[in-house]
Protein backbone atom coordinates (compact mmCIF):
# COMPACT_ATOMS: atom_id res chain seq x y z
CA UNK A 1 0.00 0.00 0.00
CA UNK A 2 2.74 2.42 0.95
CA UNK A 3 4.38 1.67 -2.35
CA UNK A 4 1.44 2.78 -4.43
CA UNK A 5 0.93 5.77 -2.17
CA UNK A 6 4.51 6.77 -2.84
CA UNK A 7 4.35 6.47 -6.61
CA UNK A 8 1.10 8.38 -6.58
CA UNK A 9 2.67 11.42 -4.98
CA UNK A 10 6.00 11.00 -6.73
CA UNK A 11 4.84 11.06 -10.31
CA UNK A 12 3.20 14.50 -10.27
CA UNK A 13 6.08 16.17 -8.40
CA UNK A 14 8.24 15.49 -11.42
CA UNK A 15 6.47 18.15 -13.42
CA UNK A 16 4.44 20.19 -10.99
CA UNK A 17 7.10 22.46 -9.49
CA UNK A 18 8.02 23.71 -12.96
CA UNK A 19 4.38 24.32 -13.82
CA UNK A 20 3.85 26.12 -10.54
CA UNK A 21 6.81 28.38 -11.33
CA UNK A 22 5.52 29.22 -14.78
CA UNK A 23 2.06 29.83 -13.36
CA UNK A 24 3.44 32.20 -10.74
CA UNK A 25 5.49 33.92 -13.43
CA UNK A 26 2.37 34.53 -15.54
CA UNK A 27 0.60 35.96 -12.49
CA UNK A 28 3.45 38.32 -11.64
CA UNK A 29 3.85 39.37 -15.28
CA UNK A 30 0.13 40.14 -15.44
CA UNK A 31 0.27 42.42 -12.40
CA UNK A 32 3.49 44.16 -13.43
CA UNK A 33 2.34 44.76 -17.01
CA UNK A 34 -1.10 45.91 -15.88
CA UNK A 35 0.46 48.49 -13.53
CA UNK A 36 2.92 49.56 -16.25
CA UNK A 37 0.03 49.91 -18.69
CA UNK A 38 -1.68 52.35 -16.28
CA UNK A 39 1.30 54.68 -16.22
CA UNK A 40 2.46 54.65 -19.83
CA UNK A 41 1.14 57.39 -22.05
CA UNK A 42 1.65 60.86 -23.43
CA UNK A 43 0.21 62.67 -20.43
CA UNK A 44 2.02 62.39 -17.15
CA UNK A 45 0.23 60.05 -14.83
CA UNK A 46 2.58 58.77 -12.17
CA UNK A 47 2.00 57.22 -8.78
CA UNK A 48 3.54 60.36 -7.30
CA UNK A 49 1.14 62.70 -9.10
CA UNK A 50 -1.80 60.62 -7.96
CA UNK A 51 -0.72 60.67 -4.34
CA UNK A 52 -0.15 64.42 -4.61
CA UNK A 53 -3.84 64.71 -5.50
CA UNK A 54 -3.44 65.81 -9.12
CA UNK A 55 -7.08 65.92 -10.30
CA UNK A 56 -6.17 65.76 -14.02
CA UNK A 57 -4.04 62.69 -13.49
CA UNK A 58 -6.80 60.97 -11.52
CA UNK A 59 -9.34 61.80 -14.23
CA UNK A 60 -7.07 60.49 -16.94
CA UNK A 61 -6.48 57.33 -14.99
CA UNK A 62 -10.19 56.62 -14.55
CA UNK A 63 -11.35 57.79 -17.97
CA UNK A 64 -8.61 56.36 -20.15
CA UNK A 65 -5.84 54.30 -18.59
CA UNK A 66 -7.95 51.96 -16.45
CA UNK A 67 -10.49 51.27 -19.23
CA UNK A 68 -7.69 50.60 -21.68
CA UNK A 69 -5.87 48.24 -19.36
CA UNK A 70 -9.06 46.39 -18.46
CA UNK A 71 -10.06 46.15 -22.12
CA UNK A 72 -6.65 44.79 -23.10
CA UNK A 73 -6.70 42.17 -20.34
CA UNK A 74 -10.25 41.03 -21.07
CA UNK A 75 -9.76 40.99 -24.83
CA UNK A 76 -6.52 39.01 -24.53
CA UNK A 77 -7.95 36.49 -22.12
CA UNK A 78 -11.21 35.99 -23.98
CA UNK A 79 -9.71 35.75 -27.48
CA UNK A 80 -7.31 33.09 -26.25
CA UNK A 81 -10.26 31.21 -24.71
CA UNK A 82 -12.22 31.51 -27.97
CA UNK A 83 -9.27 29.89 -29.73
CA UNK A 84 -9.09 27.12 -27.14
CA UNK A 85 -12.81 26.34 -27.34
CA UNK A 86 -12.73 26.33 -31.13
CA UNK A 87 -9.74 23.97 -31.13
CA UNK A 88 -11.59 21.55 -28.87
CA UNK A 89 -14.73 21.72 -31.01
CA UNK A 90 -12.90 21.18 -34.29
CA UNK A 91 -10.33 18.83 -32.73
CA UNK A 92 -7.60 20.72 -34.51
CA UNK A 93 -4.86 22.81 -32.94
CA UNK A 94 -4.50 25.16 -35.90
CA UNK A 95 -7.82 26.98 -35.85
CA UNK A 96 -9.04 30.14 -34.18
CA UNK A 97 -11.71 32.73 -35.09
CA UNK A 98 -9.44 34.78 -37.36
CA UNK A 99 -8.24 31.77 -39.39
CA UNK A 100 -11.67 30.23 -39.93
CA UNK A 101 -13.68 33.08 -41.39
CA UNK A 102 -15.50 33.91 -38.15
CA UNK A 103 -13.79 37.28 -37.74
CA UNK A 104 -14.35 38.04 -41.43
CA UNK A 105 -18.05 37.24 -41.09
CA UNK A 106 -18.29 39.49 -38.04
CA UNK A 107 -16.52 42.27 -39.96
CA UNK A 108 -19.00 41.82 -42.79
CA UNK A 109 -21.71 42.25 -40.17
CA UNK A 110 -20.13 45.55 -39.12
CA UNK A 111 -20.13 46.73 -42.74
CA UNK A 112 -23.79 45.83 -43.07
CA UNK A 113 -24.66 47.97 -40.05
CA UNK A 114 -22.63 50.89 -41.42
CA UNK A 115 -24.45 50.70 -44.75
CA UNK A 116 -27.99 49.93 -43.61
CA UNK A 117 -28.20 51.51 -40.16
CA UNK A 118 -25.39 54.07 -39.91
CA UNK A 119 -26.74 55.61 -36.72
CA UNK A 120 -27.08 52.36 -34.87
CA UNK A 121 -25.86 52.23 -31.27
CA UNK A 122 -22.69 50.24 -30.70
CA UNK A 123 -24.60 47.55 -28.85
CA UNK A 124 -26.73 47.02 -31.97
CA UNK A 125 -23.62 46.83 -34.13
CA UNK A 126 -22.20 44.27 -31.79
CA UNK A 127 -25.41 42.29 -31.94
CA UNK A 128 -25.33 42.19 -35.74
CA UNK A 129 -21.62 41.32 -35.71
CA UNK A 130 -22.34 38.50 -33.24
CA UNK A 131 -25.11 37.17 -35.47
CA UNK A 132 -22.73 37.19 -38.44
CA UNK A 133 -20.09 35.53 -36.27
CA UNK A 134 -22.56 32.79 -35.39
CA UNK A 135 -23.30 32.24 -39.07
CA UNK A 136 -19.57 32.22 -39.80
CA UNK A 137 -18.81 29.61 -37.13
CA UNK A 138 -21.71 27.48 -38.30
CA UNK A 139 -20.63 27.69 -41.94
CA UNK A 140 -17.07 26.72 -41.02
CA UNK A 141 -18.23 23.77 -38.92
CA UNK A 142 -20.46 22.61 -41.78
CA UNK A 143 -17.74 22.91 -44.39
CA UNK A 144 -15.08 21.04 -42.43
CA UNK A 145 -17.44 18.13 -41.82
CA UNK A 146 -16.39 17.09 -45.30
CA UNK A 147 -12.73 17.14 -44.25
CA UNK A 148 -11.40 14.14 -42.29
CA UNK A 149 -10.35 15.01 -38.75
CA UNK A 150 -6.89 13.65 -39.39
CA UNK A 151 -6.21 16.19 -42.14
CA UNK A 152 -4.53 18.50 -39.64
CA UNK A 153 -3.37 21.08 -42.14
CA UNK A 154 -6.32 20.95 -44.52
CA UNK A 155 -8.82 22.11 -41.88
CA UNK A 156 -7.17 25.49 -41.18
CA UNK A 157 -6.49 25.90 -44.93
CA UNK A 158 -10.19 25.55 -45.63
CA UNK A 159 -10.83 28.09 -42.87
CA UNK A 160 -8.36 30.58 -44.31
CA UNK A 161 -9.94 30.22 -47.77
CA UNK A 162 -13.38 30.73 -46.31
CA UNK A 163 -12.13 33.85 -44.54
CA UNK A 164 -10.53 35.02 -47.75
CA UNK A 165 -13.78 34.74 -49.67
CA UNK A 166 -15.85 36.55 -47.06
CA UNK A 167 -13.11 39.15 -46.62
CA UNK A 168 -13.09 39.76 -50.38
CA UNK A 169 -16.85 40.28 -50.44
CA UNK A 170 -16.56 42.75 -47.56
CA UNK A 171 -13.73 44.64 -49.24
CA UNK A 172 -15.61 44.77 -52.55
CA UNK A 173 -18.70 46.38 -51.05
CA UNK A 174 -16.66 48.64 -48.79
CA UNK A 175 -14.71 49.81 -51.83
CA UNK A 176 -17.83 50.37 -53.92
CA UNK A 177 -19.53 52.27 -51.12
CA UNK A 178 -16.40 54.22 -50.25
CA UNK A 179 -16.24 52.75 -46.78
CA UNK A 180 -12.79 51.21 -46.86
CA UNK A 181 -11.50 53.65 -44.28
CA UNK A 182 -14.26 52.95 -41.77
CA UNK A 183 -13.55 49.30 -42.28
CA UNK A 184 -9.86 49.78 -41.65
CA UNK A 185 -10.77 50.91 -38.17
CA UNK A 186 -11.75 47.33 -37.37
CA UNK A 187 -9.43 45.35 -39.54
CA UNK A 188 -6.48 46.87 -37.69
CA UNK A 189 -6.73 46.13 -34.02
CA UNK A 190 -5.81 48.88 -31.59
CA UNK A 191 -6.84 49.95 -28.13
CA UNK A 192 -5.86 53.56 -28.76
CA UNK A 193 -9.47 54.80 -28.84
CA UNK A 194 -10.59 52.88 -25.78
CA UNK A 195 -12.09 55.15 -23.15
CA UNK A 196 -14.62 55.01 -20.39
CA UNK A 197 -18.01 54.44 -22.01
CA UNK A 198 -16.43 52.99 -25.14
CA UNK A 199 -15.01 49.69 -24.00
CA UNK A 200 -17.69 48.11 -21.84
CA UNK A 201 -18.63 45.56 -24.49
CA UNK A 202 -15.57 43.49 -23.69
CA UNK A 203 -17.42 42.52 -20.54
CA UNK A 204 -19.68 40.41 -22.79
CA UNK A 205 -16.54 38.56 -23.82
CA UNK A 206 -15.57 38.21 -20.16
CA UNK A 207 -19.00 36.69 -19.45
CA UNK A 208 -18.36 34.13 -22.19
CA UNK A 209 -15.08 33.21 -20.49
CA UNK A 210 -17.12 32.43 -17.38
CA UNK A 211 -19.48 30.28 -19.47
CA UNK A 212 -16.51 28.44 -20.96
CA UNK A 213 -15.09 27.95 -17.48
CA UNK A 214 -18.35 26.47 -16.15
CA UNK A 215 -18.68 24.14 -19.16
CA UNK A 216 -14.96 23.30 -19.19
CA UNK A 217 -15.39 19.54 -18.73
CA UNK A 218 -17.98 19.40 -21.48
CA UNK A 219 -15.56 21.05 -23.89
CA UNK A 220 -12.86 18.57 -22.90
CA UNK A 221 -15.22 15.69 -23.68
CA UNK A 222 -16.22 17.33 -26.97
CA UNK A 223 -12.51 17.37 -27.79
CA UNK A 224 -12.55 13.57 -27.70
CA UNK A 225 -14.95 13.52 -30.65
CA UNK A 226 -18.65 12.92 -31.18
CA UNK A 227 -18.46 9.17 -30.55
CA UNK A 228 -16.77 9.55 -27.18
CA UNK A 229 -19.05 12.39 -26.18
CA UNK A 230 -22.16 10.37 -27.04
CA UNK A 231 -20.85 7.35 -25.19
CA UNK A 232 -20.39 9.52 -22.11
CA UNK A 233 -23.97 10.72 -22.38
CA UNK A 234 -23.14 14.26 -23.43
CA UNK A 235 -25.53 16.20 -25.62
CA UNK A 236 -23.03 16.80 -28.41
CA UNK A 237 -25.12 19.26 -30.42
CA UNK A 238 -25.98 21.38 -27.41
CA UNK A 239 -22.36 21.72 -26.33
CA UNK A 240 -21.36 22.57 -29.90
CA UNK A 241 -24.09 25.23 -29.93
CA UNK A 242 -22.86 26.72 -26.64
CA UNK A 243 -19.31 26.74 -28.00
CA UNK A 244 -20.46 28.47 -31.19
CA UNK A 245 -22.11 31.21 -29.13
CA UNK A 246 -19.03 31.65 -26.94
CA UNK A 247 -16.81 32.05 -30.01
CA UNK A 248 -19.16 34.44 -31.82
CA UNK A 249 -19.79 36.73 -28.85
CA UNK A 250 -16.10 36.96 -27.95
CA UNK A 251 -15.08 37.62 -31.56
CA UNK A 252 -17.74 40.29 -32.08
CA UNK A 253 -17.26 42.11 -28.78
CA UNK A 254 -13.50 42.33 -29.18
CA UNK A 255 -13.98 43.40 -32.81
CA UNK A 256 -16.22 46.37 -31.92
CA UNK A 257 -13.93 47.40 -29.06
CA UNK A 258 -10.46 47.04 -30.52
CA UNK A 259 -10.63 45.44 -33.95
CA UNK A 260 -8.97 42.36 -35.30
CA UNK A 261 -6.20 40.78 -33.23
CA UNK A 262 -4.72 37.90 -35.20
CA UNK A 263 -2.85 34.75 -34.08
CA UNK A 264 -3.59 35.18 -30.39
CA UNK A 265 -6.16 32.39 -30.17
CA UNK A 266 -3.78 30.17 -32.09
CA UNK A 267 -0.51 30.73 -30.26
CA UNK A 268 -1.60 30.95 -26.62
CA UNK A 269 -3.59 27.68 -26.35
CA UNK A 270 -0.83 25.83 -28.19
CA UNK A 271 1.85 27.01 -25.78
CA UNK A 272 -0.35 26.13 -22.81
CA UNK A 273 -1.09 22.74 -24.36
CA UNK A 274 2.63 21.98 -24.40
CA UNK A 275 2.91 22.84 -20.72
CA UNK A 276 -0.23 21.44 -19.08
CA UNK A 277 -2.08 19.52 -21.80
CA UNK A 278 -5.63 19.97 -23.07
CA UNK A 279 -7.84 19.15 -20.12
CA UNK A 280 -9.85 22.37 -20.40
CA UNK A 281 -10.56 22.64 -16.68
CA UNK A 282 -6.84 22.60 -16.01
CA UNK A 283 -5.72 24.72 -18.95
CA UNK A 284 -8.36 27.46 -18.95
CA UNK A 285 -6.76 29.70 -16.26
CA UNK A 286 -3.42 29.34 -18.03
CA UNK A 287 -4.87 30.23 -21.41
CA UNK A 288 -6.73 33.24 -20.01
CA UNK A 289 -3.70 34.45 -18.04
CA UNK A 290 -1.19 34.00 -20.84
CA UNK A 291 -3.59 35.58 -23.36
CA UNK A 292 -3.91 38.66 -21.17
CA UNK A 293 -0.15 38.91 -20.59
CA UNK A 294 0.57 38.50 -24.30
CA UNK A 295 -1.78 41.28 -25.43
CA UNK A 296 -0.76 43.57 -22.55
CA UNK A 297 2.90 43.20 -23.52
CA UNK A 298 2.12 43.79 -27.19
CA UNK A 299 -0.04 46.81 -26.37
CA UNK A 300 2.75 48.33 -24.28
CA UNK A 301 5.22 47.76 -27.11
CA UNK A 302 2.78 49.32 -29.57
CA UNK A 303 2.55 52.38 -27.33
CA UNK A 304 6.25 52.83 -26.64
CA UNK A 305 8.12 51.81 -29.78
CA UNK A 306 7.38 55.11 -31.56
CA UNK A 307 6.58 57.17 -28.49
CA UNK A 308 4.68 59.48 -28.36
CA UNK A 309 2.89 57.92 -31.35
CA UNK A 310 1.20 54.53 -31.40
CA UNK A 311 1.42 51.81 -33.99
CA UNK A 312 -1.47 49.39 -34.41
CA UNK A 313 -1.48 46.59 -31.89
CA UNK A 314 -2.34 44.07 -34.60
CA UNK A 315 1.04 44.74 -36.24
CA UNK A 316 2.94 43.84 -33.07
CA UNK A 317 0.71 40.84 -32.30
CA UNK A 318 1.01 39.72 -35.91
CA UNK A 319 4.82 39.86 -35.94
CA UNK A 320 5.34 38.19 -32.55
CA UNK A 321 2.43 35.78 -33.01
CA UNK A 322 3.56 34.69 -36.47
CA UNK A 323 7.06 34.09 -35.13
CA UNK A 324 5.79 31.99 -32.24
CA UNK A 325 3.45 30.13 -34.57
CA UNK A 326 6.30 29.26 -36.92
CA UNK A 327 8.29 28.01 -33.96
CA UNK A 328 5.35 25.85 -32.85
CA UNK A 329 5.09 24.37 -36.34
CA UNK A 330 8.78 23.74 -36.86
CA UNK A 331 9.79 22.62 -33.40
CA UNK A 332 10.70 18.99 -32.82
CA UNK A 333 7.74 16.72 -32.11
CA UNK A 334 5.23 19.06 -33.70
CA UNK A 335 2.27 17.15 -35.04
CA UNK A 336 2.19 19.18 -38.23
CA UNK A 337 5.02 17.02 -39.58
Amino acid sequence: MTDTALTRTDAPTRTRPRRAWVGALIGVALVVLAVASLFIGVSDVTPASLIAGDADAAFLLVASRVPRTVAVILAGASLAIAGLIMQMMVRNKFVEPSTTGVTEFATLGMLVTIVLWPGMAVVGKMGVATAFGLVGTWVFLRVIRAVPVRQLVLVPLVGVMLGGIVGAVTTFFAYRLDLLQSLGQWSQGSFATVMQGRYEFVWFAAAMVVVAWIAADRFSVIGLGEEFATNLGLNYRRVMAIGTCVIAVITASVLVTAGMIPFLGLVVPNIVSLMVGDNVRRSIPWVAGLGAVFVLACDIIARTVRFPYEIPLSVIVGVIGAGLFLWLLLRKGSRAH
Partner: protein
Amino acid sequence: MIALDHVTKRYGNTAALDDVSLTLGDVGVTALLGPNGAGKSTLFSVVGRLVQADAGTVTIDGRDVAETPSSDLARTLAVLRQDNHIAARLTVHDLVEFGRFPHSKGRLTVEDRDHIERALDYLDLEPLRDRFLDELSGGQRQRAFVAMILAQDTRYVLLDEPLNNLDLRHMTEIMRLIRQLADEWGKTVIVVLHDINFAARYADRIVALRDGRVVADADVSGFMRPDVLADIYDSPVEVHQIDGKPVALYYE
Protein backbone atom coordinates in the same frame (compact mmCIF):
# COMPACT_ATOMS: atom_id res chain seq x y z
CA MET B 1 -30.37 -7.52 -22.15
CA ILE B 2 -29.71 -5.64 -25.36
CA ALA B 3 -32.52 -6.49 -27.73
CA LEU B 4 -32.69 -5.54 -31.41
CA ASP B 5 -36.15 -5.94 -32.88
CA HIS B 6 -36.37 -5.95 -36.69
CA VAL B 7 -33.68 -3.28 -36.99
CA THR B 8 -32.87 -1.96 -40.44
CA LYS B 9 -30.31 0.69 -41.31
CA ARG B 10 -29.60 1.70 -44.88
CA TYR B 11 -26.79 3.75 -46.35
CA GLY B 12 -27.99 4.67 -49.80
CA ASN B 13 -29.19 1.50 -51.46
CA THR B 14 -27.23 -0.96 -49.35
CA ALA B 15 -28.67 -2.16 -46.09
CA ALA B 16 -25.94 -2.20 -43.46
CA LEU B 17 -28.42 -3.89 -41.15
CA ASP B 18 -31.22 -5.81 -42.80
CA ASP B 19 -34.14 -6.61 -40.51
CA VAL B 20 -31.95 -7.84 -37.67
CA SER B 21 -33.58 -9.32 -34.58
CA LEU B 22 -31.04 -10.31 -31.98
CA THR B 23 -30.73 -10.49 -28.23
CA LEU B 24 -27.30 -9.86 -26.76
CA GLY B 25 -25.99 -9.88 -23.24
CA ASP B 26 -27.10 -13.24 -21.86
CA VAL B 27 -23.55 -14.48 -21.34
CA GLY B 28 -20.26 -12.96 -20.23
CA VAL B 29 -18.48 -12.47 -23.54
CA THR B 30 -20.17 -12.40 -26.92
CA ALA B 31 -17.97 -12.09 -29.98
CA LEU B 32 -19.31 -10.45 -33.12
CA LEU B 33 -17.69 -11.77 -36.28
CA GLY B 34 -18.11 -11.29 -39.97
CA PRO B 35 -16.38 -10.09 -43.11
CA ASN B 36 -15.71 -6.41 -43.76
CA GLY B 37 -18.90 -4.50 -44.42
CA ALA B 38 -21.06 -7.09 -42.69
CA GLY B 39 -22.70 -4.46 -40.49
CA LYS B 40 -20.87 -5.06 -37.21
CA SER B 41 -19.90 -1.44 -36.68
CA THR B 42 -23.33 -0.24 -37.77
CA LEU B 43 -24.87 -2.54 -35.20
CA PHE B 44 -22.68 -0.94 -32.54
CA SER B 45 -23.58 2.53 -33.78
CA VAL B 46 -27.30 1.79 -33.57
CA VAL B 47 -27.04 0.24 -30.11
CA GLY B 48 -24.74 3.03 -28.97
CA ARG B 49 -27.24 5.69 -30.23
CA LEU B 50 -24.72 7.16 -32.66
CA VAL B 51 -27.01 6.58 -35.60
CA GLN B 52 -30.74 6.18 -35.71
CA ALA B 53 -32.17 2.97 -37.18
CA ASP B 54 -34.44 3.40 -40.21
CA ALA B 55 -36.79 0.79 -38.83
CA GLY B 56 -37.12 -1.37 -35.75
CA THR B 57 -36.27 -0.70 -32.13
CA VAL B 58 -33.30 -1.27 -29.85
CA THR B 59 -33.94 -1.70 -26.15
CA ILE B 60 -31.45 -1.97 -23.32
CA ASP B 61 -32.88 -3.60 -20.20
CA GLY B 62 -36.31 -2.87 -21.64
CA ARG B 63 -35.68 0.83 -22.31
CA ASP B 64 -35.88 2.11 -25.85
CA VAL B 65 -32.53 3.60 -26.89
CA ALA B 66 -34.20 6.25 -29.03
CA GLU B 67 -36.29 7.55 -26.13
CA THR B 68 -34.06 7.13 -23.08
CA PRO B 69 -31.96 10.17 -22.14
CA SER B 70 -28.42 9.72 -23.39
CA SER B 71 -26.95 10.51 -19.97
CA ASP B 72 -28.97 7.64 -18.43
CA LEU B 73 -27.79 5.20 -21.08
CA ALA B 74 -24.20 6.25 -20.42
CA ARG B 75 -24.49 4.68 -16.98
CA THR B 76 -25.67 1.36 -18.41
CA LEU B 77 -23.78 1.03 -21.64
CA ALA B 78 -20.21 1.88 -22.57
CA VAL B 79 -19.07 1.80 -26.19
CA LEU B 80 -15.45 1.92 -27.29
CA ARG B 81 -15.09 2.45 -31.03
CA GLN B 82 -12.15 1.38 -33.11
CA ASP B 83 -9.38 3.76 -34.15
CA ASN B 84 -9.80 6.24 -31.35
CA HIS B 85 -8.02 9.27 -32.66
CA ILE B 86 -7.62 11.79 -29.89
CA ALA B 87 -6.06 15.05 -30.98
CA ALA B 88 -6.23 16.60 -27.52
CA ARG B 89 -3.20 16.24 -25.25
CA LEU B 90 -4.70 14.41 -22.29
CA THR B 91 -3.02 12.39 -19.57
CA VAL B 92 -4.03 8.83 -18.81
CA HIS B 93 -5.59 10.10 -15.59
CA ASP B 94 -7.59 12.76 -17.48
CA LEU B 95 -9.00 10.14 -19.82
CA VAL B 96 -10.00 7.75 -17.06
CA GLU B 97 -11.53 10.65 -15.18
CA PHE B 98 -13.77 11.42 -18.18
CA GLY B 99 -15.08 7.87 -17.85
CA ARG B 100 -16.79 9.09 -14.68
CA PHE B 101 -18.49 11.94 -16.52
CA PRO B 102 -21.91 10.19 -16.74
CA HIS B 103 -21.91 9.91 -12.95
CA SER B 104 -20.06 13.03 -11.87
CA LYS B 105 -20.83 15.59 -14.62
CA GLY B 106 -17.36 16.93 -13.89
CA ARG B 107 -17.63 17.21 -10.13
CA LEU B 108 -15.80 14.19 -8.76
CA THR B 109 -17.00 12.64 -5.54
CA VAL B 110 -15.00 10.34 -3.30
CA GLU B 111 -16.75 7.41 -4.96
CA ASP B 112 -15.74 8.68 -8.42
CA ARG B 113 -12.12 8.96 -7.36
CA ASP B 114 -12.30 5.47 -5.96
CA HIS B 115 -13.50 4.12 -9.31
CA ILE B 116 -10.72 6.00 -11.12
CA GLU B 117 -8.03 4.64 -8.81
CA ARG B 118 -9.34 1.09 -9.09
CA ALA B 119 -9.43 1.25 -12.88
CA LEU B 120 -5.90 2.66 -13.07
CA ASP B 121 -4.66 0.10 -10.61
CA TYR B 122 -6.35 -2.83 -12.32
CA LEU B 123 -4.80 -2.00 -15.68
CA ASP B 124 -1.34 -1.30 -14.25
CA LEU B 125 -1.55 2.30 -15.37
CA GLU B 126 -0.41 3.72 -12.04
CA PRO B 127 3.14 4.49 -13.31
CA LEU B 128 1.74 6.06 -16.49
CA ARG B 129 -1.05 8.14 -15.00
CA ASP B 130 0.56 11.52 -15.70
CA ARG B 131 1.82 10.59 -19.14
CA PHE B 132 0.13 12.09 -22.16
CA LEU B 133 -1.75 9.67 -24.41
CA ASP B 134 0.40 10.58 -27.42
CA GLU B 135 3.46 9.45 -25.49
CA LEU B 136 2.15 5.91 -25.00
CA SER B 137 2.56 2.79 -27.11
CA GLY B 138 -0.47 1.34 -28.87
CA GLY B 139 -0.98 -1.34 -26.24
CA GLN B 140 -0.70 1.12 -23.36
CA ARG B 141 -3.15 3.49 -25.02
CA GLN B 142 -5.67 0.69 -25.56
CA ARG B 143 -5.33 -0.18 -21.88
CA ALA B 144 -6.02 3.44 -20.98
CA PHE B 145 -9.22 3.36 -23.05
CA VAL B 146 -10.30 0.15 -21.33
CA ALA B 147 -9.60 1.78 -17.96
CA MET B 148 -11.85 4.65 -18.97
CA ILE B 149 -14.63 2.20 -19.84
CA LEU B 150 -14.06 0.44 -16.53
CA ALA B 151 -14.36 3.71 -14.62
CA GLN B 152 -17.62 4.37 -16.45
CA ASP B 153 -18.90 1.39 -14.46
CA THR B 154 -21.60 0.16 -16.83
CA ARG B 155 -23.26 -3.21 -16.98
CA TYR B 156 -22.74 -3.54 -20.74
CA VAL B 157 -19.44 -2.97 -22.49
CA LEU B 158 -19.24 -2.82 -26.29
CA LEU B 159 -15.76 -2.98 -27.82
CA ASP B 160 -15.33 -2.46 -31.55
CA GLU B 161 -12.21 -4.25 -32.77
CA PRO B 162 -10.09 -3.60 -29.69
CA LEU B 163 -7.25 -5.67 -31.17
CA ASN B 164 -6.71 -3.34 -34.12
CA ASN B 165 -3.07 -2.36 -34.59
CA LEU B 166 -1.84 -4.38 -31.63
CA ASP B 167 0.97 -6.90 -31.67
CA LEU B 168 0.52 -10.49 -30.62
CA ARG B 169 1.38 -9.99 -26.98
CA HIS B 170 -0.96 -7.05 -26.52
CA MET B 171 -3.77 -8.79 -28.40
CA THR B 172 -3.62 -11.66 -25.93
CA GLU B 173 -3.37 -9.21 -23.05
CA ILE B 174 -6.51 -7.35 -24.13
CA MET B 175 -8.44 -10.57 -24.72
CA ARG B 176 -7.51 -11.88 -21.28
CA LEU B 177 -8.64 -8.56 -19.88
CA ILE B 178 -11.99 -8.86 -21.66
CA ARG B 179 -12.43 -12.30 -20.11
CA GLN B 180 -11.66 -10.84 -16.69
CA LEU B 181 -14.13 -8.02 -17.17
CA ALA B 182 -16.82 -10.66 -17.50
CA ASP B 183 -15.58 -13.11 -14.88
CA GLU B 184 -14.28 -10.80 -12.17
CA TRP B 185 -16.20 -7.56 -12.72
CA GLY B 186 -19.46 -9.22 -13.74
CA LYS B 187 -19.75 -7.21 -16.93
CA THR B 188 -21.49 -8.24 -20.09
CA VAL B 189 -19.02 -7.70 -22.92
CA ILE B 190 -19.83 -7.66 -26.62
CA VAL B 191 -16.75 -7.46 -28.75
CA VAL B 192 -16.19 -7.19 -32.49
CA LEU B 193 -13.30 -9.36 -33.57
CA HIS B 194 -11.67 -10.32 -36.84
CA ASP B 195 -9.72 -13.32 -35.64
CA ILE B 196 -11.90 -16.42 -35.40
CA ASN B 197 -9.45 -18.13 -33.07
CA PHE B 198 -9.39 -15.33 -30.55
CA ALA B 199 -13.18 -15.48 -30.51
CA ALA B 200 -13.16 -19.26 -30.08
CA ARG B 201 -10.65 -19.07 -27.27
CA TYR B 202 -12.17 -16.24 -25.22
CA ALA B 203 -15.87 -15.84 -26.05
CA ASP B 204 -18.86 -17.72 -24.68
CA ARG B 205 -21.06 -17.07 -27.67
CA ILE B 206 -20.26 -16.10 -31.24
CA VAL B 207 -22.60 -14.20 -33.53
CA ALA B 208 -21.70 -13.83 -37.19
CA LEU B 209 -23.05 -11.16 -39.47
CA ARG B 210 -22.95 -11.01 -43.22
CA ASP B 211 -24.55 -8.49 -45.56
CA GLY B 212 -26.42 -7.00 -42.63
CA ARG B 213 -27.98 -10.24 -41.48
CA VAL B 214 -27.25 -12.67 -38.67
CA VAL B 215 -25.96 -15.82 -40.38
CA ALA B 216 -24.72 -17.78 -37.39
CA ASP B 217 -25.33 -17.56 -33.66
CA ALA B 218 -24.02 -20.34 -31.44
CA ASP B 219 -21.70 -21.27 -28.62
CA VAL B 220 -18.07 -21.98 -29.52
CA SER B 221 -18.44 -25.68 -30.31
CA GLY B 222 -21.50 -25.03 -32.45
CA PHE B 223 -19.76 -22.22 -34.32
CA MET B 224 -16.34 -23.72 -34.98
CA ARG B 225 -17.39 -26.04 -37.77
CA PRO B 226 -15.99 -25.96 -41.31
CA ASP B 227 -19.41 -25.73 -42.95
CA VAL B 228 -20.51 -22.79 -40.74
CA LEU B 229 -17.26 -20.88 -41.25
CA ALA B 230 -17.08 -21.50 -44.98
CA ASP B 231 -20.58 -20.11 -45.34
CA ILE B 232 -19.74 -16.92 -43.50
CA TYR B 233 -16.46 -16.13 -45.20
CA ASP B 234 -17.08 -17.67 -48.64
CA SER B 235 -13.80 -19.52 -48.46
CA PRO B 236 -12.82 -22.92 -47.14
CA VAL B 237 -11.83 -23.02 -43.49
CA GLU B 238 -10.49 -26.11 -41.77
CA VAL B 239 -11.07 -26.67 -38.07
CA HIS B 240 -8.61 -28.75 -36.05
CA GLN B 241 -8.68 -29.75 -32.44
CA ILE B 242 -5.46 -28.69 -30.75
CA ASP B 243 -5.16 -29.52 -27.05
CA GLY B 244 -8.89 -30.11 -27.02
CA LYS B 245 -9.69 -26.65 -28.38
CA PRO B 246 -10.99 -25.89 -31.86
CA VAL B 247 -8.62 -23.87 -34.04
CA ALA B 248 -9.57 -22.56 -37.46
CA LEU B 249 -7.03 -22.68 -40.26
CA TYR B 250 -7.75 -20.21 -42.99
CA TYR B 251 -4.29 -19.55 -44.33
CA GLU B 252 -4.49 -21.86 -47.36
